[in-house]
């Protein structure tokens, strides 16, 4: 019993620590009910603010040019046919990859490997074009290119998915590393096959021979078809239903007897195949391949898919906005003599601003009204 007394003593020595009650200025709670109206208003506001923030960033680097951002951006959209098609291409490219990785995201499989999967698709298509192309009719070559691209992209998504399903390996970093391994394989193959140019330059089979604008239009149409397909696949098919159940709760999936492993692997392969098709489109337009051909668009698309709330329609809008910002700031930087890197900055700033606004979608801030009124009263007293 003596030791219990010791306890009490210690307790007493610490009592003086109790100070005045500290009040919280505000506290945050989860927002449970979000109306569609609030969502739309928040989105519109966030996009407008994001544009303004982009303009402010420009202002920092080029003082006095606040308005130029808006002027040049809109000029890049409506300025000329070529400019419009440039935006269209960027839009199709970003949308295509975002759509390709969307099912994985919906399943909460964080596939950051869009870049690598598209690149492998490019490689598959380019190899077919180079080696098989000259020996077969063009349309067969195109079909073979697409098939090969899909297989290559699918394989690249299958590998991390297999390990995820089997051992629950961290897919975020796995897919990230797969991007660089894909780059390595592309660089290796190009070096092996075409050491002089280093880019397979001048592919002739299975690629667009028509004018750039028409090839862009073809890409756009294909991506539109893929988008519609994905919309239907996610919302109207059994597979789509299964993968969203798996993404929401594994327990429910088990409860109705969905084989979670199969669904993970199947969905990843579909992602990879679609990314592969995007790879074909890239090769068909560029008629060449190198390791930097995707140029980080895989990452941008990840952000688009996420900020589009994994909803096809929102993703379309987000992809368009990013394409708009991208081309717009490109024009800004050329006009104002800034480095081309301004494009990346403005895309990042745009996306970051929208990301920040997500907070208001998920949380509510309650200010401590009492505290504020107290302050006010104090001020009044002072006066």
């Amino acid at each position, binding site marked *: 019993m003596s030791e219990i007394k010791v306890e009490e003593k210690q307790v007493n020595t610490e009592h003086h620590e109790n100070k005045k009650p500290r009040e919280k200025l505000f506290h945050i709670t989860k927002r449970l009910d979000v109306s569609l109206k609030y969502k739309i208003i928040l989105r519109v506001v966030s996009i407008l603010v994001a544009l303004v923030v982009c303009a402010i960033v420009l202002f920092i*680097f080029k003082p006095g040019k606040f308005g130029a951002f808006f002027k040049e951006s809109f000029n890049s959209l409506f300025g000329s046919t070529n400019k419009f098609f440039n935006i269209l291409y960027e839009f199709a490219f970003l949308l295509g990859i975002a759509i390709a990785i969307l099912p994985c995201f919906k399943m909460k499989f964080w596939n950051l490997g869009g870049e690598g999967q598209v690149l492998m698709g490019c490689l598959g298509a380019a190899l077919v074009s180079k080696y098989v192309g000259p020996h077969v009719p063009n349309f067969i070559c195109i079909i073979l290119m697409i098939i090969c691209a899909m297989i290559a992209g699918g394989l690249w998504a299958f590998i991390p998915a297999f390990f995820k399903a089997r051992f629950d390996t961290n897919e975020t970093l796995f897919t990230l590393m797969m991007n660089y391994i894909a780059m390595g394989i592309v660089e290796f193959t190009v070096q092996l096959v075409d050491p002089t140019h280093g880019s397979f330059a001048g592919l002739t089979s299975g690629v667009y021979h028509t004018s750039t604008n028409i090839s862009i239009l073809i890409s756009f149409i294909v991506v539109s078809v893929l988008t519609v397909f994905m919309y239907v696949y996610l919302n109207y098919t059994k597979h789509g239903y299964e993968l969203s159940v798996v993404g929401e709760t594994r327990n429910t999936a088990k409860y109705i007897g969905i084989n979670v492993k199969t669904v993970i692997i199947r969905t990843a392969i579909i992602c990879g195949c679609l990314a592969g098709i995007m790879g074909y489109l890239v090769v068909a337009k560029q008629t060449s391949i190198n390791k930097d051909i995707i140029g980080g668009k895989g990452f941008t698309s990840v*952000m688009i898919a996420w900020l589009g709330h994994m909803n096809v329609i929102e993703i379309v809008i987000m992809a368009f906005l990013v394409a708009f910002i991208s081309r717009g700031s490109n024009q800004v930087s050329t006009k104002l003599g800034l480095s081309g890197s301004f494009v990346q900055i403005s895309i990042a700033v745009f996306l970051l601003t929208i990301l920040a606004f997500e907070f208001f979608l998920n949380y509510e801030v309650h200010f401590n009204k009492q505290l504020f009124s107290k302050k006010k009263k104090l001020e009044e007293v002072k006066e």
Partner: protein
Amino acid sequence: MFALLLCEAFLLTPIFLFGSTGETLTEKSGHLNLGTPGTICVGGAGGMIGVAVYDSICGGFANSNPFLTFMFVLFFALLFGALSGLLFSFFTVSLRCNQNVMGLAYTTFGIGFYGLIATLVNRPDGFLNQYCGTISRLFMTRSEAPNGFCEIFLSHGLLFYLSFVIAIVVAVVLKRTRVGLFVRTVGENAGSADAAGIDVSKYRYITTIIGCSISALAGLYYFVEINNGLVEFKNIDAYGWLAVALVIFTLWKTDLGILGAILFAFLFKLPEIYGLPSASLNILFQYLPYFVTVVILVIISMVNKKAVQAPANLGIPYFREER
């Protein structure tokens, strides 16, 4: 030959080491910062700005003091790194945004920032190169005897040694001190940490800011020691991703990180120095670090032992009133 390889590999090591030490510290507090490549770029840009600011203050290279240059460069790199960390934690701690998206966006930003600053700061007279030359010679103890012991171990600037010191200090702090224990708690189980009276937000903010500052030094090192003040971008971001990978490779231990960084630098330089029979195989070999990382990742998940796993709350924002 081997001495040359050692020499070259050591020269590259601090990039990986700074990057992975910073990232490890950040990850230990539960932040998966995919913005590290961006932070490294921003750190490099900070170095450039530091040189430019000092240049304008002292009024030309002729009047400059190498030590002051170094302090300016270091200050700006750390400042930009800290700001990166502050921004990252503001988004992920205060606004509870998705860390992956935030990280990727910040990486995009960092790469762009480096490029933009490079064009804004650079002048045709190559003053950046001049300044960086003096900085890297500043703390160099000796540089004679090509490829000998001195060249391999003693011919480096202060930043080189700093990277090792920081790695060891971080390892000791994480392993042996109270603060280290708290940081690990926050990363393992933020709910427990909170219930035990640890201010989760504060800890995440501070560790991320310090971690990013350390990562930013990788960019500075790259700019000063490897690029010798040239503003060409090449691909710093690739080093950044490898630094992120290195964190897993070394099982979230920064002392192991020293060995890991040396190994990665070895793998990187090996094909360059020795040269494989064919140029294409040489290229493939350069990607070995990524492949090794994937293999490690799989092995770790197969072993499935708690001791080798990532901090349990890695990537999960903490909200106390979760129900």
